[in-house]
């Protein structure tokens, strides 16, 4: 059968490495315009697109992810935003070519002879994309490399089996570079432990969303309009992930499109009515508010104590309050998208995730409140809580360097 026909509309598993925000934005825009769907898991994907600079610490989990894709499959990487177009084209060419696929089949057959997929117990701390199997601590070895689950006290007094499930580092709509190790009983999270953020190899990129503030800090000329634009785009990006996780694909696409247009420099007056319509529709959705209400409560007081300074602290409440705060911030910035005044200092304007201080980036505080918010929550709420805080792990990386614009 024709491989070419199968490669006509590849489903792409977009995997973002630390420092890969710009590449991710470019990739999401390209995929939207090409109508190549974003896969949610490796099983559904044909094309593995790795966005961001190479990261030695994540090579092993990335390799496992790649093994998880069903044949025919292709793997391409785009270290920066300008490499995305070429990577996607070459990926499709690989998918459609017989030789490329034969290589993969041969390689996987070879790997199978040597034991196939790694047994589950051997998986490193990097975690896998989707935790396979009800595996746990100790006990005897079971067929298939699985071990018996351990038990422990739980909320409902049922002493259910404990399931150890890593979330991240590669999940759709998940902050890249974040890994949380969960201990689940039933669907209740008993423990949430953060893994250390994985630093990219070589020099790290400057955090894309905080770029205007970093430039202002360095004394470069940045306009207030540019900062407002970047902030609104960052909120739209966070909203698009939250909406995707919360399950509103139609508005997710709208949010991404608005974000891309903002970053591409569409004039403010043209954007204002579209943003207005989007914020009204999402902000007024009672169903969305109903589905996200009462989870991940973070009071203004508690947030301030942990050092949270941005919309999350101002919202002071649950997931619903936090996304409504983003929407309010977007509406507030509507008239300022083209402001020519110069941004005096980084402190003058709030960066997307809070007051920008190079030594204490606002995302660091967001990450520290995560375990407490996750413990006791249900699995369905966990993703919503993380998405509603949306820490930008790139801010936590030590090294900085110029970033290029996301568009080619």
């Amino acid at each position: 059968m024709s491989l070419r026909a199968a490669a006509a509309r590849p489903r792409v598993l977009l995997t973002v490495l630390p420092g890969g925000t710009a590449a991710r934005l470019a990739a999401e825009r390209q995929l939207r315009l090409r109508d190549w769907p974003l896969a949610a898991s490796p099983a559904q994907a044909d094309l593995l697109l790795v966005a961001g600079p190479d990261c030695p610490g994540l090579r092993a989990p990335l390799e496992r992810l790649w093994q998880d894709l069903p044949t025919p499959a292709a793997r391409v990487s785009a270290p920066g935003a300008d490499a995305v177009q070429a990577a996607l084209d070459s990926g499709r060419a690989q998918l459609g070519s017989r030789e490329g696929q034969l290589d993969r089949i041969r390689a996987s057959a070879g790997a199978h002879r040597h034991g196939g997929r790694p047994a589950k117990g051997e998986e490193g701390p990097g975690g896998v994309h989707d935790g396979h199997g009800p595996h746990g601590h100790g006990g005897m070895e079971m067929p298939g490399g699985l071990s018996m689950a351990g038990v422990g006290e739980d909320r409902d007094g049922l002493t259910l089996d404990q399931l150890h499930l890593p979330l991240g580092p590669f999940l759709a709509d998940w902050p890249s570079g974040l890994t949380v190790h969960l201990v689940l009983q039933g669907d209740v999270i008993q423990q949430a432990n953060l893994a250390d953020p994985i630093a990219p190899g070589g020099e790290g990129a400057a955090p894309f969303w905080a770029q205007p503030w970093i430039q202002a800090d360095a004394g470069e000329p940045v306009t207030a309009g540019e900062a407002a634009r970047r902030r609104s785009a960052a909120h739209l990006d966070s909203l698009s992930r939250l909406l995707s996780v919360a399950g509103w694909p139609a508005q997710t696409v709208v949010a991404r499109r608005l974000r891309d247009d903002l970053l591409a420099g569409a004039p403010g007056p043209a954007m204002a009515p579209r943003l207005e319509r989007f914020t009204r529709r999402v902000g007024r959705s009672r169903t969305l508010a109903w589905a996200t209400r009462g989870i991940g409560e973070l009071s203004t007081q508690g947030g301030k104590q942990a050092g949270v300074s941005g919309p999350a602290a101002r919202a002071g409440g649950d997931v619903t309050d936090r996304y409504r705060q983003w929407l309010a911030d977007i509406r507030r910035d509507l008239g300022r998208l083209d402001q020519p005044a110069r941004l005096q200092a980084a402190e003058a304007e709030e960066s997307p995730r809070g007051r920008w201080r190079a030594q204490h980036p606002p995302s660091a505080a967001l990450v520290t409140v995560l375990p407490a918010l996750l413990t006791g929550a249900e699995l369905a709420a966990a993703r919503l809580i993380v998405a509603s805080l949306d820490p930008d792990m790139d801010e936590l990386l030590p090294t900085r360097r110029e970033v290029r614009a996301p568009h080619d």
Partner: protein
Amino acid sequence: MDVTSTVLLVFLGVPALVFGVLVFTLNSMARVTFALLASLVCVGGVVTVLGLPYLGMVIVLMMVMEMVIMAVFMIAYMMNPAGLMPMSMLHNKRGALVISSVVFAALVAGIFVVPWPGHAGALPRDTTFQAGMALMGPQMLTMVTLGFVLLATMVGATVLATRRGRYDRFGDDLDQRPARDPAGGGVGR
């Protein structure tokens, strides 16, 4: 009974028995549950073919829901739910086998020895209608009793299965609003 019905009975009855035996021979709890489901769905089919489509369909519908929920309990409470490590969960196997074989032999002997009476009356035009008229008329007492039994079951099962009472939810003076629940609900909380 026409030929189609007889053929259908064979094709439903034999699997019903086979799946029934599989319930106690398979290792995986999930497979056990669904073998029982398959067996009972076949029973529903047999009842339908025998001329009671309403009851047959109700059995199918109910058993699917019941068995799927049963699977949840199986996996929550039983060790080794996937049957990855085969082990015997039987006790007194020989005794059970002897008793059930003797009962089966006695029943079969009875079936073929007892002089069954012949047909009494004709098949009603609509069997569903017959059941409904009976339950809402002469057999009303049965229906009412079944209703109370079901209500008692609902209350009793809930009381047995929950640990938290109203004092846990509403505080010692029953005045705490909203209730203290581990997870919020969809209405009013």
